[in-house]
């Protein structure tokens, strides 16, 4: 019986010859990522254990990215706990280097791997043919101590792409459109697999963007085949251009969607749900107070380039706050080298350090009562970016930048 | 200005404006919201202990640091009737006068007084502690005028004919 990519990765991690959707497997994890959102809680639980041990510290990567730099003594205390523990136990540790998922993709993930991350957007690693999934502290702790966990092997929704994005549409518009179509729980517990001839027209950055957002449809993970584009990325980032898995021809998919990329148009997700998707043309003229370009979804060099190409020589609308946060130190470095940082600064943007920033809504660029934010972040839940009575629209780097210039939601071809 | 008596709280030298009200709380909407955080870094219990009419006695350079006017306003909101210190920082001094908070410069009582003592203040004349009198000065005329009006806002209101 044929297997999907998800099933093959689970089988490998379970050291089984086959794995199939609906069954539970005991698996060995390849990486365990945790960030400052919850690591302090994991440490508290760990410290209560009778037999304190870490199964294999080389599998752990801890990343401080949510409140960087710290905004309160409370976050400083939880980060200190994390830093001290990492130091004491020799755990790979990043602080201020960028957003966890971006760093994992840039530095650590390999094809066929199974990764637990104590963050919901851990599903971001599918473009490298790796199965990443978000877990809570308890699951994380168990895996940290034993090296193992259990996984319910997911059904797979298969998305076949044909054609290429055009008309100013980006990968961000594509995945928002898909989530709008299948709904915020349309892929609950499931894997979303993306394939088809259209894949060759999507860059690695596009693919990361697509995989990253799948949790917003409820997906357990997102997966893609490791083609030459993915292998080139691995090589460029100092890793072996290893093969990934491909779903068998007779693999069982719960559902197959055929999507012609050329039909995608610029969209936004309106408050307060990611699946509340409309074409940008339907929400033009919504006045904004703030725009945000960044996050693990849309903070890569390609996104910044796109934004910079739109804003070059123009200015941020008076009274609008335009925050730009590169997703990692490397992204910042490249953006500086390419003159992109200066372009944003000259336009009046607020370029902040690489971190989760207002996507996480806790300490940087928080919005106030009644205010409107258009963001390339991952979520637009009520109150996500600040006051409980504030409004977040999700759009592409192009739409966000255009909106920052216009002072209202706008399509990039209109500014 | 009439005489009054209050219970004394003792603070040291260089009580800065970040101690009086930390920056973290400056964006709270009202002085009333900030009140519970008065003296937070140094003595967080003070807002719950200070009763209306109580007096703060401190050392040198009281109110040094920032120009934040919330500092005298929070002290006033706590019910403090006056601050007696060996010396005051300049901006704090102006801000206090402008908000009608009485400040008295005196270097004689600090060694004699302890927390909880009762102190009587006869403005412009003296302080009375355990029956002993300690002379104090009076304010320059232009400042007394502002104090008499109940602060700068009222003085300006009068100027603009809104009261």
């Amino acid at each position, binding site marked *: 019986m044929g297997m999907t990519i998800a099933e093959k990765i689970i089988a490998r991690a379970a050291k089984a010859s086959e794995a199939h959707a609906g069954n539970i497997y005991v698996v060995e994890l390849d990486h365990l990522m945790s960030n400052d959102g919850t690591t302090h809680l994991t440490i508290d639980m760990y410290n209560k254990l009778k037999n304190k041990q870490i199964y294999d510290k080389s599998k752990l990567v801890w990343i401080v990215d949510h409140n960087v*730099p*710290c*905004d309160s*003594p*409370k*976050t*400083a205390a939880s980060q*200190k706990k994390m*830093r001290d523990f990492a130091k004491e136990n020799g755990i790979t540790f990043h*602080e*201020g280097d960028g957003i966890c998922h971006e760093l994992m993709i840039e530095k650590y993930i390999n094809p066929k791997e199974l990764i637990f991350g104590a963050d919901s957007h851990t599903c971001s690693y599918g473009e490298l043919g790796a199965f990443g999934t978000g877990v809570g502290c308890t699951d994380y702790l168990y895996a940290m101590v034993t090296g193992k966990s259990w996984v319910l092997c997911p059904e797979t929704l298969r998305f076949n792409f044909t054609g290429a994005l055009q008309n100013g549409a980006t990968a961000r518009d594509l995945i928002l459109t898909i989530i709008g179509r299948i709904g915020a729980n349309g892929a609950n517990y499931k894997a979303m697999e993306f394939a088809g001839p259209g894949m060759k027209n999507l860059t690695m950055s596009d693919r990361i963007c697509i995989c990253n957002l799948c949790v917003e449809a409820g997906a357990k993970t997102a997966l893609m085949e490791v083609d030459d584009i993915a292998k080139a990325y691995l090589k460029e980032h100092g890793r072996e251009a290893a093969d990934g898995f491909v779903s068998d021809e007779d693999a069982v998919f719960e559902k197959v969607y055929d999507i012609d990329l050329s039909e995608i148009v610029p969209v936004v997700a309106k408050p307060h749900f990611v699946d509340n998707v409309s074409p940008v043309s339907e929400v033009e003229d919504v006045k904004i*107070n703030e725009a945000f370009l960044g996050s693990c979804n849309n903070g890569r060099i390609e996104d910044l380039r796109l934004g910079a190409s739109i804003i070059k020589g123009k200015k941020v609308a008076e*009274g609008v*706050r335009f*925050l730009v946060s590169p997703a990692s*130190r490397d992204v*910042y*470095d490249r953006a500086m080298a390419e003159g992109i*940082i200066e372009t944003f*600064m000259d336009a*009046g943007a607020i370029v*902040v350090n690489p971190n989760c920033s207002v996507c996480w809504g806790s*300490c*940087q*660029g*928080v919005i*106030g009562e009644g*205010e409107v934010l258009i963001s390339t972040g991952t979520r637009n839940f009520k109150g996500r970016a*600040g*006051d409980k009575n504030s409004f977040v629209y999700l759009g592409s780097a192009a739409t966000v930048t255009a909106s920052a210039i216009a002072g209202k939601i706008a399509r990039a071809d209109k500014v | 200005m009439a005489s009054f008596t209050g219970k004394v709280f003792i603070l040291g030298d*260089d009580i800065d404006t*970040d101690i009086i009200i*930390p*920056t973290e709380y400056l*964006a*709270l*909407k009202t002085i009333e919201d900030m009140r519970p955080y008065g003296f*937070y*870094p140094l003595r967080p219990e003070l807002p719950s202990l200070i009763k209306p009419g109580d007096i703060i006695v401190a050392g*040198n*350079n009281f109110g040094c*640091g*920032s*120009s*934040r*006017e919330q500092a005298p306003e929070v002290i006033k909101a706590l019910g403090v009737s006056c601050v007696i210190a060996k010396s005051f*920082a*300049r*901006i704090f001094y102006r*801000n206090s006068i*402008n908000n009608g908070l009485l400040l008295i410069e005196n270097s004689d009582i600090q060694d004699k007084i302890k927390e909880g003592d009762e102190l009587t203040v006869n403005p412009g004349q003296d302080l009375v502690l355990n029956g002993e009198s300690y002379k104090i000065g009076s304010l*320059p005329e*232009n400042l007394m005028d502002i104090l008499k009006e109940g602060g*700068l*806002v009222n003085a*300006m*209101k009068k*100027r*603009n004919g*809104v009261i």
Partner: protein
Amino acid sequence: MGATLIEKIIRRNVHDDNVKAGDIVFVKPDRVMIHDIFIPFVADKFHEMGFKKVWDQDKVVIIYDHMVPASQVDDTRHFRRGDEFAKEQGIVHIHRADGICHQLMPELRYATPGDVVFGTDSHTVTYGGVSAFSTGIGYTEMAGILGTGELWIKVPETIRVNVNGRLPDGVTSKDVILTIIGDLTAAGATYKSMEFAGDTFDAMSVSERLTMANMTIEAGAKCGLFYADEKTAEFSGVPCDEEHGCFKDTNDGDYVKVMNYKAEDFVPVAACPSQVDKIRPISELKDIKIDQVFIGSCTNGRLEDLRAAAEILKGRHVAPYVKLIVTPASRSIYNAAVRDGIMKIFNDAGAIIMNPGCGLCCGRAGGILTDGETVVATNNRNFLGRMGTNKVNIYLASPVTAAHSAVAGYVRSV
């Protein structure tokens, strides 16, 4: 009749050559500055006082810097209130994310030699670096000025500080002002003007002078003034003559105190927790392990400061588990630092590079610390609880000391 620099500046403002220390005079400010934390209060008091129109829109500058980007939900209310007030009053000098007020005021020539400037921030004294009389006031007084265009002040007495000679390598103007504050104490210049003179200051850049003027408030001073020279005039875009507020040092004023230093005697120092006047030579601070370094603020966030730190960090990395936070003082400084490769050096060294603004210095975000942590910072205050809990240890030092400390993981000046 002899005069101190502050007397010369005030005489020019009030058109009365007999004004001297101790006199109470009404001055007409050439410029006023209001920042984001206080703008709602100023606007409210202005209306409460019964005023309708500011006396001169062109003389009012509004700057958002303490709360950029907003870290708390209510912060943006300050921006909205400021925008609303600016619109209502026709105020066009408004900077929403361009950097720290005290950098922008001299940089954008809102404060120039001989000016009288008031700001709703204690570090308004900074513009003494370009020979302006500038000082901090509260929001009520600011509201009064906005309505009346004047403020009463008592002409301050002057402490004259003479420094001559060449500063040793690795010693910066920050070390000089910290040392002077240590000698004067935190209240030593209360109500007074500090006046700096001597060839050591002549050799200093405007940037270095701004650093020193900025910190005079930490000795309680009403202002800290430098005589304007060709450098100042060029920086401020004015001719270097008395008509344009560039006064010569006649050294014939009535000084309440004169302090004399030899530049060669200065050493790298730090203000130790938690008093600005608790000054120790860095060489005596041997085994102080640090958790964080902050380079920025209106004291030491200028291009020269970043460059000095970058020279030390070039090709090196911040010590493991130590954070280095760099916050340029203004947008133009940020851009210049990108162009000059300074930001690249910081980024390669592992620094966290923030947007221009007050950052950690004002203690609302930007690198808050917790119990038991120690930070070396280039800003101006190390008050208890200023950067987190009251158990955070703050050492104030120069950008040179900050950079060396970041690499070593200990307080170091070499």
